[in-house]
């Protein structure tokens, strides 16, 4: 069985679904997940949700787009979409991404190299609507028909048909959330077309013009972060209380006294974690504290709004939200007069603050930003800690967070550390800049409403799951504890939920965690057993 072919213009035609993803079409997984019974069935979409929200793309709901109540409302939304489409192509409105967007609109050779590189398209069993170029081609036709000079009716003839209606708009919005924004397709395109950017530009159009976005990233994410201080909902008092709890816990556990400095003016480093770490994986910020104290660094955390939460979800869906949060990060650093900001183990925060924010952090806000991975490399390779690799005598593999590795080129620092402290480290295939996304990229790791979870774990996360099974092939015996090192909060969230979905910890003892935990686990000045081999 295979999916039926879907023409570009079918996106505007009414149908139950444009192309439903089916479990029986998915690429089979390696043993012991190679039988249909070994993986969960897709849950049917709830009738009430189907009634209320648009689901006719593929039968999955990611962003809960309410169905318009009448034709007038549909028309109004289509008008807004068109206005937003025009803005995408105006330099005054889209100075950040206009150039790569235009290049992508003008130059696609339709060779489909990008399709082969996309884990979602591949692992879905090649559902044609998940091809990176399917999404781009819809936008390309809309651009040539409605925005570019000389478009109009002739464009249908020259560039292929496209009809703009609410069906198209709603499906395109959901379709922009069937892409992890990992940009593996952009990397493989022989002529430099950036289909990975298209998902981002579409999401931006929908959020900024139509108020359509994922509630988890927007209302509960960026908006809450700017109001309370963190997307987790922790205000300054709660976060300090939690860090104090972690400090005590870590001091007990390691025998190394840790007291996190808060708002210390003139410190060398402002360390900003993804605040989710503090709540869900406290041993990660805890291990940072142990390492920084043991290495004698001058550092601080900040209790300013967003100063203790490196999250910047706007990176995935909204330039305006993005800029607001990035400015808060830089201002927190400026206020404390630190020499640099160091970003903890969070991939999107890396790309957001060090790369994308570069154009708005000028003058007094041009404060150096650095990855924790290079700071850790310097500490470990500079022999500033006493380390005994035999304490890490278990199989370890490394997941490359797309934002740090493919998109920023931080490839070797984490590997040098692992080669030094983890004797049974092995790579996944492929890895480095050719890695595959965990399947949680671009916000998916925090999105699980309706039936999106099944799609996230069975389609988006399928390639990573396959890679992990292969990395530990021959060692799946639950008597051997195994560790997937994923130095990124978002990736860890995805791996936790993925492993739970497939029962990988209970059945095969595969745990996940960050890099700092492995370092502290090898520190001879710390009590042994930092990694507890308990599910979390």
């Amino acid at each position, binding site marked *: 069985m295979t999916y039926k072919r879907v023409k570009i213009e079918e996106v505007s035609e009414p149908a139950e679904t444009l192309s439903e993803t089916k479990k029986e079409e998915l690429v089979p997984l390696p043993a012991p997940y190679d039988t249909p019974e070994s993986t969960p069935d897709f849950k049917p979409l709830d009738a009430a949700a189907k009634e209320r929200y648009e689901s006719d793309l593929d039968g999955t709901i990611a962003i809960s787009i309410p169905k318009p109540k009448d034709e007038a409302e549909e028309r109004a939304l289509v008008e807004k979409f068109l206005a937003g489409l025009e803005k995408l192509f105006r330099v005054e409105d889209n100075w950040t991404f206009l150039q790569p967007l235009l290049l992508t609109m003008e130059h696609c050779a339709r060779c489909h190299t990008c399709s082969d590189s996309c884990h979602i398209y591949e692992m879905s069993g090649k559902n044609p609507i998940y091809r990176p170029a399917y999404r781009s081609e819809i936008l390309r036709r809309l651009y040539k028909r409605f925005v570019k000079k000389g478009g109009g009716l002739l464009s249908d003839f020259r560039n292929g048909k496209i009809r703009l209606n609410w069906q198209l708009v709603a499906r395109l919005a959901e379709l922009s959330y069937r892409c992890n924004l990992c940009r593996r397709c952009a990397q493989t395109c022989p002529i430099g077309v950036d289909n990975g950017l298209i998902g981002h530009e579409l999401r931006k159009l929908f959020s900024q013009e139509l108020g359509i976005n994922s509630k988890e990233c927007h209302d509960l994410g960026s908006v809450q972060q700017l109001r309370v201080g963190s997307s987790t909902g922790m205000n300054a008092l709660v976060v300090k209380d939690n860090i104090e709890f972690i400090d005590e816990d870590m001091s007990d556990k390691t025998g190394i006294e840790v007291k996190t400095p808060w708002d210390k003016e003139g410190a060398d480093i402002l360390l900003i974690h*993804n605040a989710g770490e503090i*709540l869900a994986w406290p041993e990660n910020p805890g291990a940072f504290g142990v390492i920084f104290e043991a290495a004698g660094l001058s550092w601080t955390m900040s209790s300013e709004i967003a100063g203790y939460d490196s999250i910047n979800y706007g990176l995935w869906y909204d330039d305006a939200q993005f800029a607001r949060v990035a400015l808060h990060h830089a201002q927190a650093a400026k206020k404390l007069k630190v020499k640099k900001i160091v970003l903890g183990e969070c991939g999107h925060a890396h790309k957001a603050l060090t790369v994308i924010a570069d154009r708005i952090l000028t003058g007094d806000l041009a404060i150096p930003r650095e990855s924790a991975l290079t700071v850790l490399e310097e500490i470990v390779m500079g022999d500033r800690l006493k380390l005994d690799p035999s304490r890490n005598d278990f199989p370890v593999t490394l997941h490359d967070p797309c934002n740090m590795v493919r998109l920023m080129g931080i490839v070797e620092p984490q590997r040098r550390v692992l080669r030094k402290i983890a004797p049974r480290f092995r790579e996944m295939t492929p890895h480095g800049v050719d890695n595959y996304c965990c399947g949680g990229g671009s916000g998916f790791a925090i999105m699980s409403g309706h039936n999106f979870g099944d799609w996230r774990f069975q389609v988006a996360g399928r390639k990573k799951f396959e890679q992990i099974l292969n990395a530990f092939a021959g060692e799946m015996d639950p008597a051997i504890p195994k560790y997937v090192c994923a130095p990124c909060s978002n990736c860890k969230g995805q791996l936790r939920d993925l492993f739970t979905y497939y029962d990988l910890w209970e059945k095969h003892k595969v745990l996940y965690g960050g890099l700092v935990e492995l370092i502290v686990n090898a520190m001879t000045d710390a009590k042994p057993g930092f990694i507890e081999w308990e599910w979390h």
Partner: protein
Amino acid sequence: MSEMVKVVNGVTLPLDEDGFLQEPDKWNEQVAEAFASDEGITALTPDHWKVVNYLRDYYLKNKIAPMVRRLCKETGFTVKQIYELFPSGPAKGACKLAGLPKPTGCV
């Protein structure tokens, strides 16, 4: 699968798409019991209530769920025991029963 609303003692409570209570102040013990049967918990034991009550108190004070590690330390249960009590885990299981909103951010 979530039903978007939950009816407890004739009161209709709206749920979010993950099945969490939309209005946490509408919570009461019957609501916890109603969620418990969805979780496959046949009867709430004193151990369940110890976790639920701790979560509820912490939430009312701080407007957010506690760290799982703190929950374990304060209640004396290991993470494994929490999972045994609430099969969907501390967030999707225990917090939901205690009427907390869905945890947000990368948690």
